[in-house]
């Protein structure tokens, strides 16, 4: 039998009370913070899981913000390409109306229409989002296309820079469409070899590897022929520009296509006919770019949905690891309170007992 001293009795009671109060305080902390883990030592393994979940959630939120930004960029680019597509459709339409002998009045009308669409195309090719040009590649502070009054052609000032954003830990998605890819026309072929009147026509293409700009040299007729004609276009603005001047019987520098009105008319008709397949291919190319944007948007939307789902799972895992189960905590607190009350009651009984109380 262990002998019990008074000192030991009091010490044990104090220790037991401290232990119970400490237990109650800890459970109360869980209730007030709503967390099961309030410091790393509460659950070291759980703590690092929680940190991992929080970092992943934070990164996913950032990827979602990136996707949102990319979505805005792609949306604006899509609208711009859509508008260009409309302009090209209109150009195609007036070409089909006006490439066969029209009155001077009609020609002027078509010429001014082509000029309008040329300017509209230039405007959309130079679209901006905030302070950034959408179609300049990496040269976002530079207008994508400008008119060179020396050569009377439109030139691309951008580059092939592909801007990307992170959409997950290792994946990136391109957000921009380079101006040369959207507005500089590449004819996939086969290209026509003769016009409707049997005049031979040829299209030779050269692509600048640094800018992606494709220059098409159109040659109509044979060298030495009276109506022999060559000209170059490197983008849809050039195409519209040539159309606009052709309807006026002029070259892009404003000079008559030929001293003879008949030959000039002939050359105009040939030019308009020769430009028709270029417009058609430009339209197809824009459509392909729009499709690419659509694909990217669908990918980003899919990625965003996945990130949402991932975050839901991660948030649920974080909550399971970190948050206190309120019902269980409340029950635990009640139990701790009952234990403390019982201890206080029994302690009061024990310490009030002494043999001295019975001595007279």
């Amino acid at each position, binding site marked *: 039998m*262990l*002998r*019990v*001293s*008074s*000192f*030991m009795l*009091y*010490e*044990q009671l104090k*220790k037991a009370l401290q232990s119970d109060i400490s237990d109650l305080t800890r459970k109360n902390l869980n209730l007030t913070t709503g*967390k099961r*883990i*309030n*410091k*790393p*030592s*509460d*659950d*070291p*393994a759980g*703590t*690092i899981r*929680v*940190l*991992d979940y*929080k*970092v992943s959630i*934070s*990164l996913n939120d*950032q*990827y979602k*913000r*990136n996707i949102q*930004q*990319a979505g805005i960029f792609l949306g604006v680019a899509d609208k711009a390409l859509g508008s260009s597509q409309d302009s090209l459709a209109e150009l195609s339409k007036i070409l089909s109306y006006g490439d066969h002998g029209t009155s001077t009045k009609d020609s002027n009308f078509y010429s001014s229409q082509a000029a309008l669409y040329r300017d509209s195309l230039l405007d959309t090719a130079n679209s901006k989002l*905030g*302070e*950034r040009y959408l179609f*300049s*590649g*990496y*040269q*976002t*502070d530079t207008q994508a296309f400008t008119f060179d009054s020396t050569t009377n052609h439109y030139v691309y000032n951008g*580059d092939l*820079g592909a*801007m*990307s*954003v*992170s959409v997950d*830990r*290792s994946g*990136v998605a391109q957000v*921009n469409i380079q101006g040369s890819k959207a507005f500089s026309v590449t004819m996939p072929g086969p290209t026509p070899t003769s016009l409707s009147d049997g005049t031979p026509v040829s299209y030779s293409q050269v692509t600048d590897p640094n800018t992606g700009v494709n220059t098409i040299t159109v040659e109509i007729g044979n060298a030495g022929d009276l109506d022999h004609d060559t000209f170059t276009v490197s983008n849809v603005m050039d195409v519209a520009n040539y159309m606009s001047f052709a309807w006026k019987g002029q070259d892009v520098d404003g000079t008559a296509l030929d001293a003879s009105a008949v030959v000039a008319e002939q050359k105009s008709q040939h030019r308009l006919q020769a430009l028709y397949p270029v417009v058609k291919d430009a339209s197809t190319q824009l459509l392909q770019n729009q499709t690419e944007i659509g694909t990217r948007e669908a990918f980003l939307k899919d990625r965003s949905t996945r990130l949402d789902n991932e975050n839901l799972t991660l948030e649920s895992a974080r909550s399971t690891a*970190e948050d206190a189960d309120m019902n269980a905590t409340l029950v635990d607190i009640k139990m701790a309170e009952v234990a403390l009350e019982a201890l206080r009651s029994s302690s009061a009984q024990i310490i009030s007992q*002494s*043999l*001295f109380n019975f*001595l007279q």
Partner: protein
Amino acid sequence: MGIGRSAIVASQTAMATINNNIANVNTPGYSRQDVMLELSLSVQRGGQLVGSGVTVAGIKRHYDRFIESQILGQNQVLGRATAFDKALSEMEQIFNDSSGLGLSKTLTEFFTAWQEVANYPEGQTPRLMLFNKTDALIRNATAIESSLTDNIKHINEEVANISGEINTFAEKIASLNSEIVVAETGSQTETAIGLRDQRQKLLSDLSNLANISMYENTDGSVNVSLGSRSLVSGSRYNIMSSKVNIEGNSDVYLDGTNITGNISSGQLGGFLMARQDITDNALYSIRRLVASVNKEVNLLHQAGFGLDSSTGLDYFNALQVSSLDNSTGADITSSSITNMSQLTLDEYDVTFDALGSYFVTDRQTGTVADTGIYTSGAAISFDGMQITITGAVTANDTFRVSPLTSSISNFGRAITDYKQIAVSGSAAGLPGDNANSIAMAQLAGSSIGDLGATFNDYYRSIVSYAGSSSSAASDSLTFETNMMTEMYSQRDAVSGVSLDEEAIKLIQFQRAFEAGARMVRIADEMMQTILQL
């Protein structure tokens, strides 16, 4: 009447002992006392030997030497567990991300800020936001290091304070030794029981401070040694002191000898162990993490281009080499990082042999990174660093070379103009090129060779260490406290005062006293009767 008188005296002595027990019921270290009564010598009366009453043979204390020595041992373990738990629970709070402390959030935000820059590479606002997030990361890393070094500073202060306390204990024990020797001279038993109780309490308290061993001399005095050196020898004691070493930490000296390496338990042992643990793990790891962020970001930043066409610039202040000089005749006269990409972020010891060769040993891997014949003033290059040692060296000389020591104290943003942030990856003057900032953001998810993990994984391992070591220290403290309580229970079972017991004894001896007094009265009445004849 004489027998009655002896009964009264014995009862009074017993009552005094009981009263003393009651008075000391709450005195720590007190051992309950009992009077030892024995039969007085019998006297010859009428041819018969008749008892002559009772004598107080002495007062004994209830004391179990085995339990007391166990308590001394357990107190050393408990002291260590207490100090270790105290230091580590402080350290744990530094990494308590759930309270908004720690580095995880700012580290993640720093890298996501690079993504914001990638979303709008030509914009000023995201670049300025990146600066804000960078500054927050720097502030947090600096705060963590300050808290850890403060923690170590507090430990060093505790080490110095405990050394002072040990001196006080040593002085008192030596003084009690003298008093006990004087009090017990010529006695065959332990008569100076109060003094012995006091000394035992002091020894018990001292054992809570450091690992002591003791033995009792035949004259009743005790010799105490601490860290294999003599602390108390009879009435003499040696002085404990603390001195700051080259690392800025307090070492403990006993009688002029450095005994830091011999302190293994008690609070002193616990604090020294915690200091080593925090320095080698938390502080080292957080410095390594920051150095790695610095190195990887700078390497990538140098390769990129700013809006103003700048390139080759560091984003953070470049890492610097620090050294500890443990040599009397030589100094490190220059040290620098020569090739950042070759830097391993390990620390190195430069040692020498008697033949004049030097050895550069990687402290983390244990491999020799470089060796050669030492020439004063000649550059020594290894793993992207170069140092120059000048002066005469001996075989005992060592130099510690580290790119980590100042990695946080020197952690700052080198870029101040937002245009110089190297967001572009391909060439100068391309405002829309965000390739470098995407690469920078992707660093967050990349496994870094120097760390063997991603930045966040590595940081998590530091938090895991802080949490699990604090948890283990707390568990250990609970266990040792319970063990101690159990031992005190064992001790109290033998030596503790029970008021109920004393109350019984009080009545017992009160009755004996009353009976003795009645005997005297009866003897007196008998005497009166005779006198009235």
